[in-house]
């Protein structure tokens, strides 16, 4: 059990060693070890409140861990300067559980926001990128709308479009399909797969949606009591004899 997530590989996008996070006296993550291979889709399952969102927020520096090491593309984030961290962050996409659209901006401005401050682009190039991103999530005619005019699921998809527009090398999805109907969910899952094949994106996908886990995941980790307690492919875990693991697949 101790070796879970620790296997040796030279070619990884992201590595977490002995991560511990607590809020006050409450320990949320105890001892998390994880290796994300390049181009891999890693699905993280776990009960609500088990610390999945906290885990990926640590990866982008939104939450400061108590202990542990986070190595992204070979560099230890704790030892990096703010400038380098910013450059690194541009390579990491983060889809918030709550979508977190900027509600004083239109959808188009939301999508353009992360583009500014990167390489110089003409207006047409930006427009093409924006329209392409909107097309990807199936909402091409929402560009002029305000986030308040959109439904919950639409916001989630715009959030996804905004994250994918920079074609990040590492993607962290926090429940990409929650609140979506089965058909759209499947489309989003396929989009995640497409990102993997087209852009060679390495992703961590947090989800409660087993369909999404089945379609997208190359490997699945299950988090329990602050540690990863099970690991395997979808099929392997489905056949697991551990009743707790099995309960996820019912």
């Amino acid at each position, binding site marked *: 059990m101790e070796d879970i997530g620790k296997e040796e590989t030279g070619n990884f996008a992201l590595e977490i060693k002995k991560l511990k996070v607590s809020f006050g006296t409450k320990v949320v993550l105890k001892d998390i070890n994880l290796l994300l291979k390049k181009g891999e889709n890693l699905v993280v399952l776990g009960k609500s409140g088990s610390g999945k969102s906290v885990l990926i927020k640590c990866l982008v520096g939104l939450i400061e861990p108590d202990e542990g090491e986070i190595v992204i593309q070979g560099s230890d984030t704790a030892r990096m300067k703010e400038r380098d961290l910013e450059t690194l*962050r541009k390579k*990491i996409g983060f889809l918030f559980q709550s979508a*977190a659209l900027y509600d004083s901006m239109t959808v188009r401005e939301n999508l353009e926001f992360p583009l500014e401050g990167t390489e110089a682009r003409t207006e047409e190039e930006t427009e093409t990128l924006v329209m392409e991103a909107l097309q990807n999530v199936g909402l091409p005619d929402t560009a002029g709308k305000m986030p308040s005019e959109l439904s919950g699921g639409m916001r989630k998809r715009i959030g996804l479009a905004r994250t994918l527009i920079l074609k990040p090398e590492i993607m962290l999805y926090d429940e990409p399909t929650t609140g979506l109907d089965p058909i759209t969910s499947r489309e989003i899952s396929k989009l995640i797969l497409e990102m993997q094949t087209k852009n060679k994106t390495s992703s961590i996908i947090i989800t409660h949606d087993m369909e999404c886990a089945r379609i997208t995941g190359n490997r699945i980790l299950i988090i329990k009591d602050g540690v990863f307690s099970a690991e395997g492919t979808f099929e392997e875990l489905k056949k697991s004899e551990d009743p707790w693991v099995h309960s996820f697949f019912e």
Partner: protein
Amino acid sequence: MKTGEIAQTTTRDDLAEEGPSFMKKVKSFFIEMALLSAFMWKFFKELFKRPFEFNEIARQCYIIGCRTLPLVGITGFIMGLVLTIQSRPTLAEFGAESWLPAMVAVSIIREIGPVITALICAGKVGSGIGAELASMKVTEQIDAMQVSGRRPFKYLAVTRMIATTLMVPLLVVFSDTISLLGSFFGCNLKGDISVHLFFSQVFEKLDFMDIMPAFIKTIFFGFGIGLIACYKGFNSDKGTEGVGRSANSAVVIGSLLVFLIDMIAVQLTSLFS
């Protein structure tokens, strides 16, 4: 006898409870001051770093300036008018009615104009910025900006603080001008004075030491209002309640700060003149 005893025990209990909680309050006050200073330091550090976000600064100046203009104008006019009407009887008693324009102008430009305008800005602008940033904080929009590699502190806080620092002095100048117009109307309600005479009387009595310190302190008012509002917004508690509390304390502390700066400014001016 018995009631007395009860009364005494209650007092003692209260004191016992008040002791540590009072110390706690003092402690949290100093922690807050340290955090606020760090926030201010970060502002100066980020101020000269790229990207400068000129578009956003201009947009914030427009929002802060234009949306507060009518309110500041109306209050300024009423201030000048009322002050003139109220001062007339007293001056008339001493037979110094001809001093009316100069006296009103000096009190408006030196003190009342800057302070009232700054208080209005602390209310309107401060609560607006406080609530906006706090709700961005609780809905993770600030986190989202940070994650996307843009600098939320620069884009949201620095731009707004620059905008208030620039716009509050301008609003004060505007309000002072409208106040003088109000005062001119006030003078003409009972009596007859030409525009030319009114303003020549005003400017005869106003000198550099009236205008300059008053203008300089408004720059600090503007900075203080922006600083407190952004600080409160960025450090909002989670939840909608946190948003309300941030907006509220942005106004309360911002207004207090205006008075504090005013007091210091008065001391400094009297020291140098």
